[in-house]
Each structure stands twice: as structure tokens, then as C-alpha cells.
């Protein structure tokens, strides 16, 4: 198996009131290509901080993170942006869609930034919206879509540049159970097509849909169902 993510001794401190808050205290985590892992834990345990570091959104205070063989800890912000754009997809709890753009335009956005031609990105956006079951809503703007539909648009956008890794931060957190199930089914299809998935959730039921669960507490990994010889 090819290692897609390799985090070693990752720590992250945030300054707060003149002191440092230790969000992560030395996390080791490896993810292989095609895996679907869930990072679970109580609120404030550092799981979203870890996800941000693994996806190249933030830089660690210490330790190293390699994503697709690239040392994120050593990259400049512009290089991390480029990597996020071309190799990584991100699905957020609150969808993070641009309200002034239609569903199709939201999906086209990362492709536009990546320099893909208009005809090609329009075709691919429609294809992706069909894939997530929103072929009939391409011209709708986010305020006119339900929460589940908005999250589907966000997933289509995350897949726009054919990422090798998809990160999701509480992707069902804002949705009702049935809609959450639909989104997880969609993730299953994405993963089945070979995309590596890293998902953060506080819901054990949602975490159980992944093939591997990493449990965190107080900024540390306390259990990893996929760790060799581990718990």
C-alpha cells in the first residue's frame, strides 16, 4: 500500500491570553491510499486541528506531516494552497459554499483557479452534480438548496480537481439522520472509486461507517483500530 499521509510527532499550540494552549501533543498517524478513516473524540480533543494539519490548511508547531510525499511542514503557504487545490478535497461541516454563485459555479470554482478551460470545467461540474444527485439543481444558489443538497454541492466541489485525498470535518454535523446517511453513502461511493478519505466526527455511528477509527483525547491519539499491533 502507498502511504498517502504520514504524520510524526505532530504538535500544535495556539497562543491564548499570553499562554500556549496545546491542541495536539505529539500525534503519529499514517494513512494508506484508498483507506477511509474516521477521527473521533470529544469536543476540544484536537481532531479538527489534526485534520487541518493533515490537509495542509495549517502548519504544525512541531513534528512533520507528509501528504502525498510532500513535506507540508516545510512548504510555504502558497505551495500548501496549490497542493490543497490540486490534490486535496475538503468538505466542511457548514458547507462553505459561496451564496452568490450557483451550484454549478461553486463546483467550477476550484477548477477555474486550477486553470481548467471553461467548457471542460462546465462539463465536469455537471457530471459531478449528476454524481451527487443534483443534476436538476445546477442553476440553484445555495440559499435555495436544503442542507443535504448544499453538502452534496460541497462534495461535488471537493471532487472537482480529482483529488487523491478527501478530508471531511463533521460532514453530517448540520444534517438530520436520514440526510446524513445519504451523505455517508455518497462518501462510500467516492471511497470505492479509490479516493482516500479522512473524516472527523464526534458521532460514533458515523465513525463506524469508516473502515478504520482513530480515537483522540486531550490532543493525543488514544486508540487506532488500524494500527499495526496497536489497540
Amino acid at each position, binding site marked *: 500500500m502507498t502511504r498517502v499521509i504520514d504524520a510524526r510527532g505532530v504538535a500544535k499550540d495556539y497562543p491564548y491570553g499570553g499562554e500556549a494552549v496545546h491542541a495536539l501533543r505529539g500525534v503519529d498517524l499514517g494513512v494508506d491510499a484508498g483507506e477511509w478513516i474516521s477521527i473521533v473524540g470529544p469536543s476540544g480533543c484536537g481532531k479538527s486541528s489534526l485534520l*487541518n494539519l493533515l490537509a495542509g*490548511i*495549517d502548519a504544525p508547531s512541531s513534528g512533520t506531516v507528509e501528504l502525498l510525499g510532500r513535506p507540508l511542514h516545510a512548504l510555504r*503557504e*502558497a505551495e500548501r*494552497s*496549490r*497542493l*490543497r*487545490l*490540486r490534490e*486535496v478535497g*475538503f468538505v*466542511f461541516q457548514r458547507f*462553505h*459554499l*459561496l*451564496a452568490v454563485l450557483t451550484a454549478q459555479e461553486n463546483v467550477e*470554482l*476550484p477548477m477555474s*483557479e*486550477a486553470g481548467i478551460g471553461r467548457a471542460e470545467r462546465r462539463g465536469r461540474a455537471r457530471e459531478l452534480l449528476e454524481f451527487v444527485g443534483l443534476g436538476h439543481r445546477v442553476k440553484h444558489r445555495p440559499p435555495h438548496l436544503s442542507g443535504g443538497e448544499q453538502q452534496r454541492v460541497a462534495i461535488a*466541489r*471537493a471532487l472537482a*480537481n480529482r483529488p487523491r485525498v478527501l478530508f471531511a470535518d463533521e460532514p453530517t454535523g448540520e444534517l438530520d439522520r436520514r440526510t446524513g446517511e445519504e451523505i455517508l453513502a455518497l462518501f462510500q461511493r467516492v471511497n470505492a472509486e479509490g479516493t482516500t478519505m479522512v473524516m472527523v466526527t464526534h458521532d460514533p455511528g458515523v465513525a463506524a461507517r469508516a473502515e478504520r477509527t482513530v480515537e483522540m483525547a486531550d490532543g493525543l491519539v488514544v486508540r487506532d483500530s488500524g494500527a499495526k499491533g496497536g489497540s
Partner: protein
Amino acid sequence: MLTLLAVAAALGGGLPQMLVERRLAEAVPLHVGDTVSVRPLASGAALRPFVVAGVFERPADPSRISRNEFEVRLHLPDLQAMLPATDRVDRFAVVLAPGADPSPAARWIAGVAFGTAVFGSRDLAEESSSTFRVVSRFHHAIGIVTILASGIFLLCVMTIRVDERRRDMATLRLVGVSRATVFRAIVLEAIAIAVLGSAAGAGVGIVGARIVNAYYAHVYDTTLRFALVTPRIVLLAALLGLGLGAAAGALAAWRVVNVPPQRLGER
């Protein structure tokens, strides 16, 4: 100074001719062909009849705007005949052909009439326009304050607009849109707002100037233009808009692109 004492109906004949300015013609009223009697105010000289040969519009002159005086033009010999001392004048003007050098003409006049002081119209204008220079500087000061205020206002507008869309900026950054792209987009938006604002301001200025000019033309019965919006002013406004927009956009953008994307959505 002359006085018009009587107006007769059109007689004409071989009388000397005079031109009267439009305001005088309207006030009396006078028409071309009418005969008027004229005598100098300073003496008890006899009345001399003149025929109105034409009506002219007095050149707009801000230094005479509030003086309630009328102007007539006579042929020089006729005017000379009406003066108490026919070989003496206080001052006279010589109009040269366009582009002609005034210095040789000034030297010639000084040589012909000893003791004559000759001034170019530009020197005279400068000497008599010190009040207007002060007013002009005052206008410049108002302009500079206005530009500063509008620059600060634009910066505030851009900061508010950017602040309102921090979540959108966060989205762009999180999906991998570069800081440079976000920066460029904000600056371009600020420039567009500023240039549109400048265009709207120029439009308001042009309409406002027309209203002001129409009002004072009515009050003072003059062709003088009190407010001017020239192509140079419009161009300056557009360039200032461009510069201020770019600066305000760059400042607002600088604030936002230096915040880590994961913290941009926070308030």
C-alpha cells in the same frame, strides 16, 4: 464715464455709430438703428447723438460681476471728441493679432508716447486676480480634504465589505484559491467601486455645475461660468479613483490575506 440721456426712434442717417452691450440694450431697451444722445458725466458738454449699430455681449469678467455698470463702444475719434482734453487718456488697450509677441508692441507704444507704462494682459490679470488666487487655493484645500475623506470612506467601505465576507474568503482559501488571487480580487473590486464612484461623482459635478451656472447667470445676468467640470478634472477624478481604489483595496485585502484560512470564518 458717459451718460445716455435720450433715446429717439430710428433716425440713423449720417450719425456716428456706437455698440451697446446686451444688458443695456435689454434694460433701456435699445435696438439696432435707434438713436441715443450721449455726454460725458464729468463735464457739461453738449449731448451728441449716436446711432446704435449693434449689440454685443460683454466678455465675462469675474472682477466686474458685482458692479452694476453698462458698457458702450464708440469709434476712437468720436470718443476723443467727447473728452475734455482730446489728447489725454488715462488708459487704453491694444489688441494684437493672436500669437503676436507683445514686447515689441509695448516698446513701440512706450517710444511713441513718452511716460506710458505698458502692461501685458497676463501681468494685469495676475495683479488684479490675487483675490481669485486665494479663492482658488481655498478650493484646492477643499478638494484635498474631500479626496482624503473619500479615500478614508472608501477604505472603510472596503474593510466592511471584506469583513462581511470573511467566510467567503475563508472558503476560497480553504479550497486552495491562493492568497494572491484573493488579494487581486479584492483590489479589483475596490478599483471598480472607486472608478464607478468617480464616474458618478463627475456626473453629479457636471449636473451640479450646470445648475449653479444657470442660477448665477440668472442672478447676475452674465455669461460667466461659476463652476467648471473640464475633461482634465474628469480624468483627474478617474485617476484618483483608480489610485485610491487600489490603495484602499490593497489595505483591506492585506488584512484579510494575512489571517490563516481556518481562522477567517471566526468573528
